[in-house]
């Protein structure tokens, strides 16, 4: 926002700094103090118009960053996301550009139950016109956000709620390109592909595999669209085994896309791991059922290694 006066942010509760504190500076001061209410815009609870207005702002020369709090509420603006923002450039033959970043946090948010815990990234990856970003580290969050704002087209930006408190080194101003995966751990026996919060679960599982003499290569996709096919295909061809892990529901998820692509292009054995097709429950036991933790990753990897 310092570098580009046309960048604004809008959404509910931004004046207070955002419900996750994501619109505060390093000292915890709400950004509205620095940029004023014309650039950090507090909005009514009007999701359709938050996104619709962002489309209009973008068409009038602004680069809005839209806050939707959780992806679940973005569904109240699904027309504006899918039919308006994503289609504008194509439908109008390139006359319009909608440089908008729509932040829609994903994932289980402890005891928040079925309407605040969904991981709907596959829905948006399905839509031409949308870039889908799923950072897993503070540095990637900073760098991918810079690329998303610079990209000039609608970006669905999905942070995992459980990653908000994560700390880590960040180089200010260092952009991370969209569509380039990160090898989070090198290995030769099995490839585990994941993104966002689940990368950590995969790294934990990889530690346990290492204790059993199995070297897993963990790939953090960083962005689901575009996704780094080359990195995944190369690794799967090298290890001969691919496991895709996501917190989203397994069936009809983005893991299926990756597994199918790897099966089409390599001889690797493929497997998917995601949540069962159930809403996220409130009670801890129900919530845990939907969670894809290190133990489930470990079990799925061992099963794949036996095939």
């Amino acid at each position, binding site marked *: 926002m310092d570098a580009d006066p046309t960048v604004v942010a809008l959404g509910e509760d931004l004046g207070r700094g955002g419900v996750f504190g994501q619109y505060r500076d390093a000292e915890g001061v709400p950004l509205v103090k620095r940029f004023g209410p014309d650039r950090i815009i507090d909005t009514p609870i009007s999701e359709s*118009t938050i996104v*619709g207005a962002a489309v209009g*702002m973008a*068409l*009038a020369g602004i680069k809005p960053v839209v806050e939707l709090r959780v992806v679940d509420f973005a569904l109240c603006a699904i027309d504006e996301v899918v039919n*308006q923002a994503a289609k*504008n450039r194509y439908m109008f*033959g390139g006359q319009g550009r909608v440089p908008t970043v729509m932040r829609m946090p994903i994932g289980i948010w402890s005891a928040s139950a079925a309407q605040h815990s969904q991981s709907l990234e596959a829905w948006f990856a399905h839509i031409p016109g949308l870039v889908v970003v799923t950072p897993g580290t503070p540095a990637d969050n900073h760098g991918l956000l810079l690329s998303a704002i610079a*990209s000039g087209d609608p970006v669905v930006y999905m942070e995992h709620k459980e990653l908000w408190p994560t700390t880590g080194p960040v180089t200010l101003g260092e952009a991370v390109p969209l569509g380039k995966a990160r090898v989070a751990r090198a290995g030769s026996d099995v490839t585990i592909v994941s993104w966002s919060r689940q990368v950590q679960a995969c790294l934990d599982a990889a530690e346990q595999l290492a204790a059993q003499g199995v070297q897993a290569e963990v790939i953090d996709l960083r962005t689901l669209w575009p996704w780094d096919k080359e990195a995944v295909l190369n690794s799967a061809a090298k290890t001969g085994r691919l496991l895709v892990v996501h917190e989203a529901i397994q069936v009809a998820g983005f893991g299926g896309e990756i597994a199918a692509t790897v099966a089409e292009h390599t001889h690797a054995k493929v497997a998917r791991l995601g949540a069962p097709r159930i809403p996220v429950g409130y009670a801890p036991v129900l919530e845990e059922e939907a969670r894809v933790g290190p133990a489930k990753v470990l079990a799925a990897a061992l099963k794949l290694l036996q095939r």
Partner: protein
Amino acid sequence: MPDLLSLYRTMVRIRAFEDAAEISSQGGVAAWGKQASDKPALVRGPLHLSTGQEAVAAGVCAHLKPADLLTSTHRGHGHTLAKGADATKMMCELFGRATGYNGGKGGSMHIADFSVGMLGANGVVAAGLPIAVGAAQGLKIRGQDAIAVCFFGDGAINRGPFMEALNWAVVYHLPVLFVCEDNRISATTESAAMTAGPGASARASSMGIAAVQVDGTDAQAVSEAAAELIREIRAGSGPRLLHALTDRHKGHVSVDPGLYRDPAAVAAALARDGIARARARLVEQGLGAQADQVDQAAKAEIDAAVATATAAPPPDKAAAYTDIQNTGAGVWA
């Protein structure tokens, strides 16, 4: 204030465009009880005609500058022409040609000319309202001396985005004119049965938005009301709403003969046709010859547009893969 002859010219151009588009859409598939014919339709898909509603587009857009921004509905040809778009490029778009405004990617329902501030017709009822308030907010943030205008139908006021957009415009004190084209019907349903209360202007008033009702078949009346509202908006009043009572002469889409409508109501609508009434007034004022010239010029213009569109090339197949998004470049390109 624009004179009657120039309002008449805009209306006649829109009518000629709609008539030509309608003829070009006949043929092809079976729909709405009509048989399929061998003749391929040159304009394909749903074609929503604004025939009968020309006075609203003409009267409002006469007061807009190129820098002013406009969003529209599924019935957007008239608004686009009145905002200054080129009829030939529009017809090419309806014909799905590479030379159309959207390179053939949008067609009638997405007709647009961003170069004159016309940000697009929309296939989703009420979707233009939030986009218009955002456009107005963008203009305000950038300190630009321009306003946004939003056309929508009487059916649109029953969707959430209508309420959201009006509220939003008040909250941020935005330079936006909402224009309800109230033709009292939504697709095939009489709106009155579906709408609580007296409609758009009453709902606007309840949110503190000054609203004016006007005879939307009378271009001069629309023009006068719009002029005052737009003057107030440019002076910093915040949002205003114009509630224009108008008539849809045709069915919902071009292939719809509208048989469900009350014949007496349709006859009454045709009898108060704004173009015929404007023409009679011009003749009264001794401007009959000028009106004839306007008619001929419009017909020649639109005939030429159809000829150009018929001969124009279709888009390249490769265009299907362009203008979708940046996938990975990370920079505006």
